[in-house]
């Protein structure tokens, strides 16, 4: 069965499509890492205390960043229901936000990968400080070079990271192979609406995807779900977090404003880049020209039971 080709939505995606997978991998490893290789203090001034660099989950407009990110960690933990001894791969673990939260709150074994050596150092130091270093490993590698053994992980996570990966079919095939039966795939990331809305070739899109973040590829939700399904997994749950991301970005932008001078000292010009891309993103999610979703899928019979999740509403 031949899969429908993924749409190429902007010029940099069309350029990427002309590269060999090896060339594109090298391109991503080099260009994407630049953003995350900035001084970790900068991100500590902008993000929450666990350094989550993806959307939080906000229940009301007056909540602070710490609350929104704490709810996200707890919600993801509940969705994954990691059992003692289970093995978790966090693809694009950043400075270890979700990875270390899960390590502290479960008895699983955790393997994070990132493209940034500075992120790896921070994550490993925090693992030590927080007493979970014996169950946490972090490697510096592009996911396509990981070559994990078949059926070796119970959970694979992508939180704000899959957007950096061009060759999505290959990624989903790799994930499906490496999951054990009953294994879970979790993704939290951004998507374009199914029908074009807004100008995807605009200078603002290029600024965020290329100038600020190195390389990004937004699919539509149905494209990602299709890839997950064709790789042999079943989608269990999809949740929209677009308005939570607007709120998250609002907090980050305010923190850039408050810490502009210190950020400038550490990396001249970077405060502008942060505020610029975050403002473009905030406007896009507010207008829903970009959408933020959390996805959960299973390999075979699910070990988590979504029908029992607490959403208010009674049968009559």
């Amino acid at each position, binding site marked *: 069965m031949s899969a429908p080709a993924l749409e190429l939505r902007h010029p940099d995606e069309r350029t990427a499509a002309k590269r060999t997978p090896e060339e594109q991998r090298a391109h991503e490893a080099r260009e994407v890492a630049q953003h995350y290789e900035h001084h970790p203090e900068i991100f500590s001034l902008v993000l929450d205390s666990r350094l989550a660099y993806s959307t939080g989950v906000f229940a009301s407009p007056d909540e602070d960043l710490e609350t929104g990110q704490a709810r996200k960690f707890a919600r993801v933990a509940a969705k994954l229901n990691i059992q003692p001894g289970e093995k978790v791969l966090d693809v694009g673990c950043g400075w270890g936000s979700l990875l270390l939260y899960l390590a502290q709150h479960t008895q699983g074994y955790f393997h994070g990968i990132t493209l940034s050596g500075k992120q790896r150092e921070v994550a490993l130091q925090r693992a030590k400080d927080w007493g979970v270093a014996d169950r946490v490993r972090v490697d510096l590698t592009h996911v396509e070079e990981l070559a994990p053994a078949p059926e070796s992980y119970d959970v694979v996570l992508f939180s704000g990271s899959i957007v950096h990966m061009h060759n999505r079919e290959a990624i989903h095939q790799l994930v499906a192979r490496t999951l054990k039966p009953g294994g879970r795939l979790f993704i939290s990331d951004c998507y374009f609406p199914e029908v074009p809305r807004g100008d995807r070739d*605009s*200078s*603002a899109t290029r*600024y965020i995807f290329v100038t600020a973040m190195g390389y990004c590829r937004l699919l539509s939700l149905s494209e990602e779900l299709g890839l997950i399904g064709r790789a042999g997994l079943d989608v269990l749950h999809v949740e929209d977090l677009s308005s939570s991301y607007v709120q998250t970005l609002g907090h980050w932008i305010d923190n850039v*404003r408050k810490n*502009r001078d210190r950020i400038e000292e550490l990396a001249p010009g970077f405060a*502008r880049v942060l*505020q*610029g891309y975050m*403002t*473009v993103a*905030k*406007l896009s999610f507010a*207008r829903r020209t970009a959408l933020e979703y959390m996805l959960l899928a299973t390999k075979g019979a699910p070990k988590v039971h979504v029908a029992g999740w607490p959403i208010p509403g009674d049968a009559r």
Partner: protein
Amino acid sequence: MSRTIPLDEIGREVRGIIAGTLRRPVEQVPLTASLEGGLGIDSMAMIEINIGLEERFRFAMPEMASPAEANLKTVEDLARFVAAQLDRQTGRSA
């Protein structure tokens, strides 16, 4: 910074920041120039200009994806808008 900055000085700064963002000589950015039609300021340029203004005047500009969204037509409109925002956010004495 309190808003003791006179409007004509704000105007000069606004022209300089627009010129810098668009990479044009400041003489090509008179107060009377139209932001969208004349100078071709798109959404990204507007965002960058607003960040430049925030850096210069240490206040917060409201987020806007285009000048029209805040009813701004000319460079002078933007300068007056900045002055009003500064008054509101820093309290005016002068």
